[in-house]
């Protein structure tokens, strides 16, 4: 068994039993990075101090000192989440060289539990994209076929996890940015309920939709990471005061078999779904039926408004959120004769095409005279979408939908067609609009490429979702 086949729990256990050293774990991951990163381009930067930190963990253990529960476990972090003292670039030219002045809350919590940050991962610039092709560091490549995209925008995190360059990773998900790359790379990826995980220190793309979440090779690791990073944060007013359970303990101790009521919204299983993906997913549905789960077709009638509403809201918020990258206080600057000219030069030179497109569209939909027609309408549609889901969750435990309509596409295939690219998110944006938790579960392969299914749960039902996924992992995938 290779080191990277162990779970976080197992590695921590071996470490405390002194059957493995933290340095061995970190060296192993660093060597995989050394071997694979130049080809797959998962990391933007690698933490030079990781090995040093591992040494300190080993010293503590050898001195018989108490160590935090997950000391020495290497985690990758998407490059839009601040780690104090390390560069945060958001894969943008404009932030190259920017050193974060503080830890994101999720990072601080992981640090307190002993995790080591092995590096910062590649992404679409400012998380705007579905393939990680819109990175100023070049695209990340799919470990299952390097000619294909990794999905996005947390492509680097998914690739790092799928190819064994990190034990697990943090991503961020605004419209599918954790689930889509997890699906394309064949790993688990969870977008938690909005407000479950603090956004403090996550460079905002669309504040009302963004959530940080874990990407991992197994359900246990997802559960552990979620337990660590969840919870109310005094620095983020949008976090929930809902108590956080130990998800790992929960799935470990609740292994009874439940008969779930599962809804399949017809809007998600219609023509847009490719044959290859459908085949794999239907096979999985067959397994669920064999387990006597109640599976029924339902309707979420306002689904058709999800993509337009999502892009209007996301771009509107983005246009405001990205205003701070003006060349005044940090990041890079192109001089000009006036303040205005300096801003124009800086943003003109250092923002990528997709970022400019979204900032411009977002500025437009918020403009006087258009606000009511676009932004306000999108917010109304959002309410309708929320109500659709509320109705369903009165009768069902989960909604199951494809994560992606297609298999991972070829690099360059959609890069010149924004609308086609935006439709990659067709199945993933609704949970963000509704604030619901959603998890990608890898359920098979087609032509050697991974296929994932999306499990959407009710608000703050991550424990039950993980229990379901754990069951699937043990009984179906594994």
């Amino acid at each position, binding site marked *: 068994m290779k080191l990277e086949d162990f779970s976080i729990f197992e590695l921590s256990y071996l470490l405390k039993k002194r059957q493995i050293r933290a340095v061995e774990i970190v060296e192993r991951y660093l060597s995989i990075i050394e071997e694979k990163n130049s080809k797959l381009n998962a990391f933007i930067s690698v933490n030079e101090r990781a090995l040093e930190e591992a040494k300190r963990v080993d010293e503590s253990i050898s001195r018989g000192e108490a160590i935090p529960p997950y000391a020495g476990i290497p985690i990758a972090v998407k490059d*839009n*989440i*601040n780690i104090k003292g390390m560069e*945060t670039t*958001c894969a943008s030219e404009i*932030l190259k060289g*920017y050193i*974060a*002045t*503080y830890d*994101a809350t999720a990072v601080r919590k992981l640090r307190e539990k002993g995790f080591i940050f092995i590096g910062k991962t590649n992404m679409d610039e400012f998380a705007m994209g579905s393939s990680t092709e819109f990175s100023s560091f070049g695209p990340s490549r799919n470990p299952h076929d390097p000619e294909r995209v990794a999905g996005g925008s947390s492509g680097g995190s998914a690739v790092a996890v799928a190819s064994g360059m990190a034990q697990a990773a943090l991503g961020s998900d605004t419209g599918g940015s954790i689930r889509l790359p997890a699906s394309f790379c064949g790993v688990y990826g969870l977008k938690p309920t909005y407000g479950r995980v603090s*956004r*403090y*220190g*996550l*460079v*905002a793309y*669309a*504040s*009302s939709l963004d959530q940080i979440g874990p990407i991992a090779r197994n359900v246990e690791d997802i559960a552990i990471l979620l337990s660590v990073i969840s919870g109310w944060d*005094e*620095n*983020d*007013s*949008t976090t929930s005061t809902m108590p956080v359970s130990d998800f790992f303990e929960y799935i470990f101790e609740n292994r009874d078999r439940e008969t779930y009521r599962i809804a399949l919204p017809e809007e998600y299983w219609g023509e847009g779904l490719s044959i290859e993906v459908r085949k794999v997913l239907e096979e999985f549905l067959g397994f669920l039926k064999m387990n006597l789960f109640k599976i029924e077709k339902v309707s979420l009638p306002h689904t058709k408004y999800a993509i337009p509403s999502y892009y209007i809201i996301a771009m*509107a*918020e983005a*246009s*405001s959120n990205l*205003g*701070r*990258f*003006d060349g*005044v*206080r*940090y990041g890079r600057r192109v001089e000009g004769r006036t*303040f*205005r000219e300096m*801003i124009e030069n800086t943003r003109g030179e250092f923002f990528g095409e997709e970022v400019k497109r979204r900032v411009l569209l977002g*500025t437009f939909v*918020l*403009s*006087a005279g258009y*606000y009511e027609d676009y*932004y306000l309408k999108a917010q109304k549609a959002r309410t309708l979408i929320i109500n659709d889901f509320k109705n369903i969750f009165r009768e069902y435990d989960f909604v199951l939908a494809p994560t992606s309509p297609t298999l991972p596409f070829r690099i360059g295939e959609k890069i010149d067609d924004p609308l086609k690219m935006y439709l990659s998110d067709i199945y993933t944006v609704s949970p963000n609009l509704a604030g619901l938790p959603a998890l990608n579960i890898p359920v098979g392969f087609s032509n050697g490429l991974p296929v994932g299914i999306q499990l959407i749960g009710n608000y703050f039902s991550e424990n039950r979702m993980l229990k379901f996924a754990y069951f699937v992992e043990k009984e179906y995938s594994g």
Partner: protein
Amino acid sequence: MMDVVIGLEVHVQLKTKSKIFCSCPADYTKDIPPNTHICEVCTGQPGSLPVFNKKVLEYGVLLSLATESRISKLIRFERKNYFYPDLPKSYQISQYRAPLSYGGFIELKSGKRIRLQRIHMEEDAGKLVHVAGETFIDFNRAGVPLLEIVTEPDISSPDEAVEFLTLLRETVRYLGISDGDMEEGSLRCDANISLKPEGEDRLGTKVEIKNINSFKFVKRALEFEIKRQTEVLKSGGRVIQETRLFNEAKGTTESMRTKEEAHDYRYFPDPDLVPIEISQELIDRVSEDLVELPLQKYWRFRKEYGLNDERASILKSDYYMAEFFERTVKFVGNPEKVANWMTVEITGILRNVGKELKETPLTPENFSSLLKLLFEGKISRPAAKSVLKRALEIGEDPIQLIENEGLLQSRGDLSPLIEEILRSHADQVKDYCNGRKKIISFFIGQAMKITRGKADPVELKKIFEEKLKDACKGLD
């Protein structure tokens, strides 16, 4: 004749301990080194998020109650988007569609009510500092809480504008929520002004004036603008809708940007902050901090103590002074005399030394004792004045001063002194008897010199007149 129509937008900086969306100290005064009261939130570092300081809400509710504004049940913050170097996030967190309160008013002495359109909360920006041809930014002020008070266009003269602002300043000071100092920037005012033919309902084209940094300039800027617009209209021209900057040095306004160049701020609800419900409990709790307001006090002082307009106005202008006055009157009565001493003598001395009453050792208690001695004729008026002056200037206890210097005068003892003076100045006595009555002040001066100011000159004059009458008789 033209009607003048003025509406004001006033920014009041709140003196909370910390900033509105982070825990940095809200103190940004000159002695704080630049960029020391800052953090990732108020400098707009990537990924930082605002957290609302509830104290700001309490202060806002208090001013809303004091102006009888209707307080919204549910409020939210919105982002006002524009680029400027002192604006760290390139948006200001403000309120737009769901402000804190609306529909209040401030009443002028004339009884006219200046209606308030709205009161809302927002954050201040940083400050540009120009040094030797270079521009720097100090973010200490970024995130300091502000209340914006917007009036309806109810003000019809520069004097009314000044009265409104004075009352607003006094109100925020009474409530203890702001220093209300225009020169220091803790009270800032933009004015919208237009002219229309007398009696016409339709408003004329308005011009916004910015950069008015003192009460004096409010009047001057508005007066200039009325003159300018009147001339434009008289010569058959049209006033254009624009923003103009007041030039302090020239006393004029200058065009800054026209309507076409106006910003589109693209307001939208700030997704980083959750809507806030304002409960009746909060309102009830805050309303306990309400005090009698400046104009209420003014009218009560006029009615209850029979004070004239000027004295009542001066006394109500400062909460501490008004309280001081009332307590003093409680001890010694004589409200008019007390008011006179306070509004003339004390105010005059304080203005000279640049101090505030509460910074001096003068208390209603020791001031009352002083006045009592004066009213009972135990010390002279000049002695009382000089004691007051030294108490306020140097900070000595006035009663202690009187005791130390033996300033208490005893009536009966004056005659021998006066006789002695007259005896030793026989020539001057002759002059007096020959008709140079004015020379009496020479004798009084001599007596004051000898008694070191203890004697009451009025008393002295009376005695001198009697004694001199006798002396002249003797010369006949």
